């Protein structure tokens, strides 16, 4: 594994039953960088994202070939516990999905399961995570109120804070702004750029401007294949593959 990379996929194929959703994906995700995965619907980018923390395990009849290397071992190896992987590789979903619990209990859900029990530690963790997610000032007086009472954008930042409370190495984001208004989207984008100092972020997005604005590396997927994987600047100014150019200029997709 190369020095600056944190996750590598080697010749990964992925199947839903008989359907092959991903074909021969080999990618290196770099530490403390934002990598954007783009491509038309159904191209496999979300599938790849969910492969990286074994969320696809939850789908019956899903099957993986090849290896996904994280911390020098294949996370699909026989002795790997997916629960441990998910603690280190956090995830934020397309639709904000806070638990119907208080804001405080949303943040402490994961840490409590990992054995953080002391009240003071939990309180600190809540403040720290909410500050990192730039939500603290808005909710510090209503921590015991239901997370469901927050706006969509706040809920999504809460979900980010909840993921950060686990102190993950990598944060996977699956179209985190597609259900949000432009102002909330801008806030989340700002936040993501801030977070890359401490975390590695891999983000799936349908919004090409978003990929161009915030990511360092961009991978373009089409029909389950990785068509092009390059520096974002290069992809958006001078793509080497015609398909990529057609997609980002809006000729298809």
């Amino acid at each position, binding site marked *: 594994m190369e020095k600056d990379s944190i996750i590598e996929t080697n010749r990964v194929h992925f199947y839903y039953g008989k359907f092959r959703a991903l074909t021969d994906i080999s990618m290196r995700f770099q530490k403390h960088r934002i990598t954007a995965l783009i491509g038309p619907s159904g191209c496999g980018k979300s599938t790849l994202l969910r492969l990286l923390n074994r969320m696809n395990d939850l789908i019956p009849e899903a099957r993986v070939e090849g290896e996904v290397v994280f911390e020098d071992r294949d996370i699909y190896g026989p002795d790997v516990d997916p629960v441990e992987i998910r*603690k280190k590789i956090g995830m934020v979903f397309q639709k904000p*999905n806070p638990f*119907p619990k208080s804001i405080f209990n949303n943040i402490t859900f994961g840490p409590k*399961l990992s054995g953080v029990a002391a009240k003071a530690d939990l309180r600190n963790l809540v403040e720290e995570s909410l500050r990192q997610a730039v939500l603290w000032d808005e909710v510090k007086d209503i921590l015991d109120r239901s997370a469901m009472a927050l706006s969509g954008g706040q809920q999504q930042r809460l979900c980010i804070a909840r993921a950060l409370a686990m102190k993950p190495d990598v944060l996977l984001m699956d179209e985190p702004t597609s259900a949000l208004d432009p102002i909330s989207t801008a806030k989340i984008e700002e936040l993501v750029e801030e977070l890359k100092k401490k975390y590695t972020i891999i983000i799936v997005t349908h919004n090409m401007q978003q990929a161009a604005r915030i990511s360092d590396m961009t991978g373009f997927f089409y029909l389950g294949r990785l068509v092009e994987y390059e520096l974002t600047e290069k992809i958006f100014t001078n793509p080497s593959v015609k398909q990529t150019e057609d997609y980002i200029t809006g000729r298809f997709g």
Partner: protein
Amino acid sequence: MKITRRRKEKLIKNIFFLFAIVSLLILFLIVLFLFREGIPIFKEVTLWDFLFGNEWYPTYQPPSYGIWPLIVGSLIVTFFSSLIAVPIGVMSAVYISEIAPAALKEVLKSVIELLAGLPSVVLGFFGMVVLAPWLQETFDLPTGLNIVNASLILALMAVPTISSISEDALYAVPKEFKEASYALGATKYETIVRVIVPSAFSGIMTSVILGMARAIGETMVVLMVAGGAAAIPESLFDSVRPMPASIAAEMGEAPFRSGHYHALFATGIVLFFMTLIFNLVADYVSHKFREEGSGTL
């Protein structure tokens, strides 16, 4: 005369209104009748003595109309049947909706539905012919028709109610909550205990209360297996006479509009209020603990 579209709409609306009002009207008439036939008993006995009187001797001279033993009988079999049925019903719902493999899930679901469809007289028969002799021999009792027997059979009747309504509630928990939990490194069991069950809590509580309402109103089973003794029980192996059993057993014998007849109707009123309370509580709980849906905007 040409019917205009507007008139047609109005006509359809009225027809539906009529059907809606019919069921309401029937219910109202039943309640009215129940009260008309039940209230006269209070010319012979005070409400207090009726509810809390310890002696139910409606055919003695002079008769005594205290239904406290019947109320206690009803409550006690309801309580113990719930004690058995609630854990079984809820746990089986959790297993079916969250743990069981797809093939087994279908089998279990249909078995439980089948259990719900069993006529109560069949269950009562089972209690009488199989369970009662077994209880009698095993515990060396004067009779196997007692609280334990009735509670077990009533539990058997309440389990399908509790299980199927709980299962619906668990099934309705948004997939997003589960995903969020797994993504935070929760195991399957942590997800069930900390996310899925709490999210479905109001539905589970509703199922429990409806299951209890089913047990308290059930007639045939308690008539057949509770033993029929109108006395406050001293042990779990004593016979009791729950209210529905008393009404069903005695109504045929009670002379029309006699004191006994009115007393049985008044017992019906008490039963009516009890099930009403169960339903109101179920309604309240299902609203009170309703978790708001997943992250909507």
